[in-house]
């Protein structure tokens, strides 16, 4: 045990002596969460649009003020002719043009269905669709109001309510995602690099010749990173909670426990990589390619898993971050307890056991 402590102390000195790395370790999570939180938005808010109003009557003006008042759309330009539409898009000033027909009033009074045209800039298809839906909702709302004034036949009225994230804040999505990403990055990348460094400088041999067990050597190297990653997990949750208002509906203790589980799974992956990589650079590239990119793309962090081709959906099942993300979203946003997430927890535990088993086996092979 005393030997093990000597090793821990050394690792602690390595980490705290290297101020640059330390700043990256503690600074990066905060910076990343702020960047992701502020930059990546997929909710509609103050989108600049233009109108082409052929009608210019009380209805169109009322509609326009309703649109402006919604807070989602912002009318910045009034076009005079249909020729100007494409130009407006090309200058990329607006994302949508709403065209009111000149017989708008007539149609509305005669109970005809007025045809209002929405033209959308689909260079970003998802976004265009989203704006279209918002506009539609505003216009339908107005139509319902109209029919309330002049009673008509009953029609179906849809009432949507978004639960667990009523305001559709994208930070609710990105804070857990960033958490998964950061923990994976720190744990796997740092642990694989730190072990590969010992191999590269030759000091690993000396440690192995000493009476320390190989397992002790590896544990001594990765243990400090468990603590570091844990501190980071806490800081990311705090920033998410204070700056972006991401709630923690469920148990904080449960959240911490599963985070530790995810951290040690990532560390095990890092160790596995370091059993293959002999150089720091190799370890870094392997971590990047094998862990970082899939975590970004396949975990459901940025792109919904349900929309992926089936093959990728299967592939996403072997990404630990996917399960972790499901768990922490359930805990943070839905307030789920262990009864709802035990399957994912079990999967993560299984992944941890398998990777650590492979690493231990590989490690022995390398010593032969």
């Amino acid at each position: 045990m005393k030997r093990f402590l000597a090793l821990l102390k050394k690792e602690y000195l390595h980490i705290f002596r290297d101020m640059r790395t330390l700043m990256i370790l503690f600074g990066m999570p905060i910076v990343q969460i702020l960047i992701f939180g502020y930059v990546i938005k997929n909710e509609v808010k103050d989108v600049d649009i233009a109108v082409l109003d052929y009608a210019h009557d009380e209805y169109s003006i009322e509609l326009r003020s309703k649109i402006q008042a919604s807070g989602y759309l912002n009318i910045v330009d009034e076009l005079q002719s249909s020729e100007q539409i494409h130009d407006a898009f090309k200058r990329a000033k607006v994302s949508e043009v709403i065209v009111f027909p000149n017989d708008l009033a007539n149609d509305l009074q005669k109970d005809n269905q007025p045809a209002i045209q929405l033209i959308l800039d689909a260079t970003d298809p998802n976004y265009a669709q989203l704006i279209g839906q918002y506009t539609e909702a505003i216009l339908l709302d107005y139509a319902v109001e109209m029919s309330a004034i002049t009673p008509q036949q009953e029609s179906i009225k849809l009432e949507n309510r978004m639960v667990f994230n009523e305001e559709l804040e994208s930070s609710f999505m990105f804070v857990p995602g960033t958490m998964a990403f950061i923990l994976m990055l720190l744990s796997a990348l740092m642990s694989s690099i730190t072990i590969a460094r010992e191999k590269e400088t030759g000091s690993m041999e000396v440690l192995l010749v000493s009476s320390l067990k190989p397992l002790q050597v590896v544990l001594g190297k990765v243990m400090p990173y468990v603590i570091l990653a844990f501190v980071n997990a806490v800081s990311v949750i705090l920033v998410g909670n204070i700056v972006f208002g991401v709630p923690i509906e469920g148990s904080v203790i449960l959240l911490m426990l599963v985070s530790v589980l995810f951290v040690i799974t990532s560390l095990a992956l890092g160790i596995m990589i370091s059993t293959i990589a002999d150089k720091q650079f190799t370890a870094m590239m392997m971590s990047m390619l094998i862990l970082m990119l899939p975590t970004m793309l396949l975990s459901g962090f940025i792109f919904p898993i349900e929309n992926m081709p089936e093959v990728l959906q299967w592939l996403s099942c072997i990404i630990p971050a996917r399960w972790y993300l499901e768990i922490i979203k359930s805990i943070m946003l839905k307030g789920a307890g262990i009864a709802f997430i035990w399957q994912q927890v079990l999967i993560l535990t299984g992944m941890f056991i398998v990777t650590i088993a492979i690493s231990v086996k590989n490690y022995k092979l390398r010593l032969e």
Partner: protein
Amino acid sequence: MQADKVIQVHNLVKKFGNFTANDALSFDVYRGEIFGFLGANGAGKTTTIKILTGLSKPTSGDISVAGFDVYKQSDDIKRNIGYMSQKFSLYEDLSIVENIRLYGGIYGLSRKEIKNRTNALLSRLGIEDKANVLIGSLPLGWKQKIAFSVAIVHNPDIVFLDEPSSGVDPITRRQFWDMIYEAAHQGITVFVTTHYMDEAEYCDRVAILVSGKMVALDSPGKLKHDYDEDSMEGVFVKLARGKRSFVKNNK
């Protein structure tokens, strides 16, 4: 088992697939002697040292180190040996004292022992004032001396030095060998691999390895006499040539 034989190797074979790195090596090393393992790069020196230090397992052969069997008692062996690799393996971002403390701690010395030996080590090297200097800022010769001192900080029976002086100039090498003699005087057996012929001259006995086989084993003086050469360099060249023609004839 005789008490004065600290390393006993009988018919050591190590194969990597089809390649035989160590081919039926047999030798004994006596307590307190400086035993040199001489050979060109790739002759199998490092493989042997790895087996003797428990980093690697032999394919076959009877081997005991410090009285323990390499197959079953590698933990006991590890407690009784020191090791210094080609790369010195001190941590560059730790200070001299921190490195000593680390290895002292890893070898299970008590806090008091570590303190005493650290002070003794610093004063012997005359670097009390540099105790907190980072290893990374020291010249290579100093790193080498400290690495050696650290490798024997726990007073092992045997210290293994794997090409300890590669990249160091001859004068520094000479100073380094003074330290090795001192350690041998204290009863620490020194097992050293090298491809520097001048170093071979400093050893009590030298084993010469050519392509995995041991072709000679004796004191440098005896070897020079037997092969009628003035220097170990001559002996080595003669043996290496002979071996090569031997290999050719075999094909």
